[in-house]
């Protein structure tokens, strides 16, 4: 899995560089996010600008990150979701579960 980690204000910005998140790399993404949380980094932005395809296992990996950050009173935010990928969130109603912003700069510091 190709990922890039940077900092923005109080957030870890995890940019997914792969075009696809499917059963081949979703476990890597899930593990990476879990290790980040275990290091005490519970404010995470996953930047999905490059991702043009996500399947159910990819959504599952993001859901795992969401649940584990919320359990530690952190924030788990998704940004830059492409249109077709966004339709997957709508289909599963996960757009009501995740905090979603158009871009990293728009994530508010609550």
């Amino acid at each position, binding site marked *: 899995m190709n990922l890039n980690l940077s900092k923005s204000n109080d957030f870890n910005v995890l940019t997914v560089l792969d075009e696809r998140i499917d059963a081949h790399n979703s476990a890597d993404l899930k593990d990476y996010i879990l290790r980040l949380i275990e290091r005490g980094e519970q404010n995470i932005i996953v930047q999905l600008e490059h991702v043009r395809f996500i399947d*159910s296992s990819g959504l599952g990996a993001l*859901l795992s990150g969401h649940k584990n950050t919320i359990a530690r009173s952190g924030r788990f935010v998704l940004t830059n979701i492409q249109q077709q990928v966004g339709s997957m969130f709508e289909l599963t109603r996960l757009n009501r579960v995740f905090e979603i912003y158009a871009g990293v700069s728009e994530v508010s510091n609550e």
Partner: protein
Amino acid sequence: MCSEIIQVDVLIPTHTKYLDLIGSIGERIVKELDNYSGDKDALAYQLNLVLTEATANVIKHAKDEHNENSVRIRIHLHDNILDIKVFDHGQGFDLNKVPEPDFEDPKENGMGLFFIRSVMDSVTYSRVGDQNVLEIIKYLN
């Protein structure tokens, strides 16, 4: 509308690295539909998704249950009907017993079949001879 006839029969190893390949074949087929009047980008994504989910399912169970080293997928387009068959030699499962996802308390697993059912018109799973066939149909008109 499209009157093309395309049949693609694919045999790939039961390894998740080939999901991209099978999904991409689905997307490319959609590009060939000159007369499709709907949203082609959405259809391309849906076909990629359905092929990815169905194949991933076979790969997962092949690893868990039996040492099947390849999975066969047949994509058939005829008379505005897109007919996908995914074959496996596993124990099989009861399609009707697969629960809908709980939208109020979403889980990390169990969304694959829901996606297939949501974006296609018909999904059946049956035993044919010594193998199981997941058949997924979408009417394009």
